[in-house]
């Protein structure tokens, strides 16, 4: 049963991510990214990470993707989007990486059944049934300092986005602010 779920989620994730790259209209790309986010959330549920599945849907699908769609519609891009001339470099980079991944996985596949999972199963460490409680306790004890740093990152990103995206003060009504200040004096 879990294999059925995995095959479904993995297939949909791969198909949606290929569509993100392949579709020419950015709105369609963003919508197939939405499909991919939902299926990643489903995969998280099968991996006993229910809290992260909820956060994935709320933050990624609810906030980040809406931001993307806003910008796509603000900019009103015309559909002259062809593929980049760097596709040869892309193939040159990605084909060896794919081969490397296959070699690594085929080498490590036979040892994976007797890996750390078997060693850890004997120890008393198990994932708590209440995933949100366990994540909260881990986050506020072991990872307290990174958590604070993450909040600082968000603050810096917010200020940076405002500074980058806003117009210069007085840009709209007067293209040359120096003249205006002299006239005001």
């Amino acid at each position: 049963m879990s294999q059925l779920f995995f095959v479904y989620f993995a297939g949909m994730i791969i198909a949606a991510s290929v569509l993100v790259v392949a579709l020419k209209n950015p709105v369609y790309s963003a919508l197939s990214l939405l499909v991919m986010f939902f299926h990643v959330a489903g995969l998280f549920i099968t991996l006993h990470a229910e809290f992260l599945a909820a956060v994935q849907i709320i933050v990624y699908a609810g906030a980040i993707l809406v931001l993307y769609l806003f910008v796509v519609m603000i900019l009103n891009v015309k559909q002259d989007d062809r593929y980049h001339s760097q596709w040869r470099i892309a193939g040159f980079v990605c084909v060896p990486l794919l081969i490397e991944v296959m070699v690594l996985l085929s080498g490590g596949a036979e040892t994976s059944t007797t890996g750390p999972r078997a060693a850890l199963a004997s120890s008393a460490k198990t994932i708590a049934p209440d995933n949100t409680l366990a994540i909260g306790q881990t986050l506020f004890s072991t990872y307290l300092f990174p958590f604070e740093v993450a909040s600082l990152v968000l603050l810096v990103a917010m200020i940076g986005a405002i500074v980058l995206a806003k117009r210069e003060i007085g840009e709209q009504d007067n293209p040359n602010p120096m003249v205006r200040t002299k006239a005001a004096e």
Partner: protein
Amino acid sequence: MTIPISYYLILSGVVFLTGIVGVLIRRNIIAILLSVELMLNATNINFVAFSDYFRDLGGQVFVFFALTVAAAEVAVGLAIIIALHRSRSTINIEEFNLLKW
């Protein structure tokens, strides 16, 4: 019947490579940022799979931080795109060749 960890690695590798290909071949900046999101999600799948595999919640906490960084990256990246579009009135990546040698 559990899924072997290597299946999750293959899945996240394929998604990550799709993201790399998207960054390299797309000419629309917004599509490039969407491909970066693909790569971040591939690493998240890896983190959660290993967190389940090792029975350790640290992986899930790191996904949380990756999510934070992704949100910050999207905010700053889209602000940069808006500023670029305002100064050049295009978002085709080949028009921005100021730093190209």
